[in-house]
């Protein structure tokens, strides 16, 4: 195997795959990138952690086709350091990949391509196109609720749930709060017989990375795998098996009051309250009365904070406490100028909504204080 490639193009491709490789695995080959140079003057780069696989391709001058694997991290690091416009690579007899940039020469250890796990990048019978910006917006506005850690009471993935024929709802929840965002998409045909599918957190992040560089993406589903495809990159994600909870049951369908106010003003006030909170005293109390919203937070050791905000509200008083970080994050992941805060009682989640956009919802469970 022998090829020559533009350094910048190789760097972009390696950056894409390096995020996928599994550094913690005991299988060393999973930290490697599979390199395949073919007669069509293409270099294919593949990486997998067995749950998520990515294959991308880039133009190269291939003089001898062939395949091998090298450490993705080290290959990326050295390409970053090389400053030459082109880089030459050759697999030598002693199973080393020689990488030459100007007068610098690396000889990288390889693992045989045959040892690299076999994975398919797309076998979906039907694929559906979606505008990158639309999908990116929905994913980035909900991923903040997907828990980072394994925890027995929540699902570490984003649930894609068809709403009617033409709407796809992305739902995330860490068990204490929930957010959804929905996009126009032939959801019913896409999902098929399932009630919905759950994409693991890392998979959502990889889709988001894929969306950074492209305008359109097509999605397909086959046997518990989600395939996402842009013109030169294929991503395959193993879906989570755990059943996502019946989240719609816990979204209150009644309200006992609501108010609307400027979103940035509320975020600013909450940030001022957050100064006196800490890990054991995380809550902000929100007390609503006629024309007034009072925020209070505090910590017996540090001190307390209070702020009064004028609001357009007339009705029964209401007081509730929330984890202040949850409320701030809910508000920061909205885009509207104003926010609607809607409540039922101190046992049900408080809703934070975009007044003119029924496609986004954030729900935060109260704290008993």
């Amino acid at each position, binding site marked *: 195997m022998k090829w020559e490639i533009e350094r910048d193009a190789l760097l972009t491709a390696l950056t894409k795959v390096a995020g996928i490789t599994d550094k913690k695995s005991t299988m060393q080959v999973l930290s490697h990138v599979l390199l395949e140079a073919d007669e069509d003057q293409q270099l294919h780069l593949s990486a997998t952690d067995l749950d998520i696989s990515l294959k991308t391709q880039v133009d190269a001058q291939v003089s001898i086709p062939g395949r091998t694997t090298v450490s993705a991290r080290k290959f990326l690091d050295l390409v970053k350091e090389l400053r030459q416009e082109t880089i030459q690579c050759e697999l030598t007899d002693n199973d080393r990949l020689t990488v030459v940039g100007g007068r610098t020469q690396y000889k990288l250890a390889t693992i045989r391509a045959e040892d690299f796990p076999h994975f398919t990048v797309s076998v979906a019978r039907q694929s559906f196109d979606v505008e990158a910006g639309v999908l990116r917006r929905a994913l980035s506005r909900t991923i903040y609720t997907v828990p980072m850690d394994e*925890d*027995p*009471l*929540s699902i570490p993935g984003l649930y894609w749930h068809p709403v009617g024929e033409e709407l796809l709802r992305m739902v995330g*929840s860490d*068990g*204490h*709060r*929930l957010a959804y965002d929905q996009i126009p998409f032939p959801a019913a045909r896409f999902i098929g017989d399932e009630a919905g599918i759950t994409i693991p957190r890392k998979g959502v992040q990889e889709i988001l990375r894929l969306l950074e560089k492209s305008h359109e993406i097509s999605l397909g589903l086959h046997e518990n795998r989600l395939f996402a495809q842009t013109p030169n990159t294929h991503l395959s994600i193993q879906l989570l098996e755990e059943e996502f*909870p019946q*989240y719609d049951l*816990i979204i209150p369908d009644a309200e006992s009051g609501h108010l609307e106010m400027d979103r940035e003003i509320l975020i600013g006030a909450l940030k001022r309250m957050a100064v006196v909170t800490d*890990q*054991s*005293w*995380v*809550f902000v109390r929100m007390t609503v009365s006629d024309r007034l919203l009072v925020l209070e937070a505090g910590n*017996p*050791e540090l001190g307390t904070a209070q702020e009064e905000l004028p609001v357009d509200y007339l009705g029964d008083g209401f007081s509730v*406490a929330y*984890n202040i970080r949850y409320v701030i994050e809910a508000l920061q992941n909205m885009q509207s100028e104003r926010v609607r805060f809607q409540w039922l009682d101190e*046992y049900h*989640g408080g809703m934070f909504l975009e007044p003119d956009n029924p496609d986004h919802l954030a*729900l935060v*469970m*109260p*704290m*008993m*204080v």
Partner: protein
Amino acid sequence: MKQRVRTILHLDMDAFYASVEQHDDPALRGRPVVVGGGKRGVVSAASYEARRYGIHSAMPMFQALQKCPHLVVRPVRMRRYQQVSQVVMDILRSLSPLVEPLSIDEAFVDLTGTEELHGPPEVTAQRIKDRIRRATGLTCSVGIAPNKLLAKIASDQNKPDGLTMIPPDAIRSFLQDFPVAKVPGIGPKTLQKLSVLGVRTCGQVTAQPVTFWTRRFGDRAGRWIYERASGVDPDPVNPQRPAKSIGAENTFEEDLAEDAVLHKWLLLQSDRVARRLRRRGILGRTVTLKVKYDDFKQITRSRTLPLPTDSTETIYGEVLALFAGVPRGRKIRLTGVSVSGLSAGRGQLHLFENREENRRRRLDTALDAIRHRYGAGAVRRGRLWDLTLLTEKDDGQGEDR
């Protein structure tokens, strides 16, 4: 940075429970009195008259009665002791804001820098003793030293009604022949290892360099033993010392074998613990079950929950699961439930699985409100109706540690 010399006072009420009983009932003065739960319970406190018979706290009651047949046994009146304790703590707090209650009858006070205001520490200490005696009729023993460790050792020197000072320049000579066995925090296992080395006094410990001890006991433990024996204790007086666990336990009138009855006791104890958690607005994550058999062998089993709780049902559920795994060859004389891993993390309500916990929380809140208004006996869980009398007396054991 050179640390300024601190003045720490340790106060320990003399035979507290028993002294309160003797104060409240003058007929008991001068007689051997113990406070404890029933004929089969243990001695919670013994008056100095009773101690002369070799009776001490934690001794089984039958044994105490063997040693002294005309012993006066009084039930534990926790509420009354708490009342008296409050008076004592208020007196301490009037002298310094830095008061750390260790238990109902013990506290540390940081008097550093109060000389200008109150005069020399021994004068302040005498004044405290006089005020406590006037307000409660009780005596106490006081130790004054540059840190908590030495202050506690000092207060133990001249009991009852003692006042002992260990000034900084006297520490060395004081500890030279002081037995390591009497140093708070040095436990039986360490003592055994020390005695193998022929070490009995603090002076013998400090005669060796610290490396001698770290080599034998490990870095942390070795250093710690050396520091303790040198009378070093940097721990500050912490007025908001949070409780580490909350517990409730009972020694039964008769040893029990039947699940049905034991389960009721466990529910009762779970409820008592959960109520205390709720009253203080805190939550706990680790539930511990303690079982003592009729041969006095004791075991504990713990389980940590995914989320902290203050719910009676949740705690009881865990206790039952733990109890199911406990060996059951012998009869049981005591059970106890405690909750640790306490946090002020407050109750973050959960969206899904904890809907059940939220429901329980509402039930708990309602029961608490009724009890608060109409008294502890006003409502009880259906399963406990026949344990009515038992819920009334809180045996006071398993207080917050």
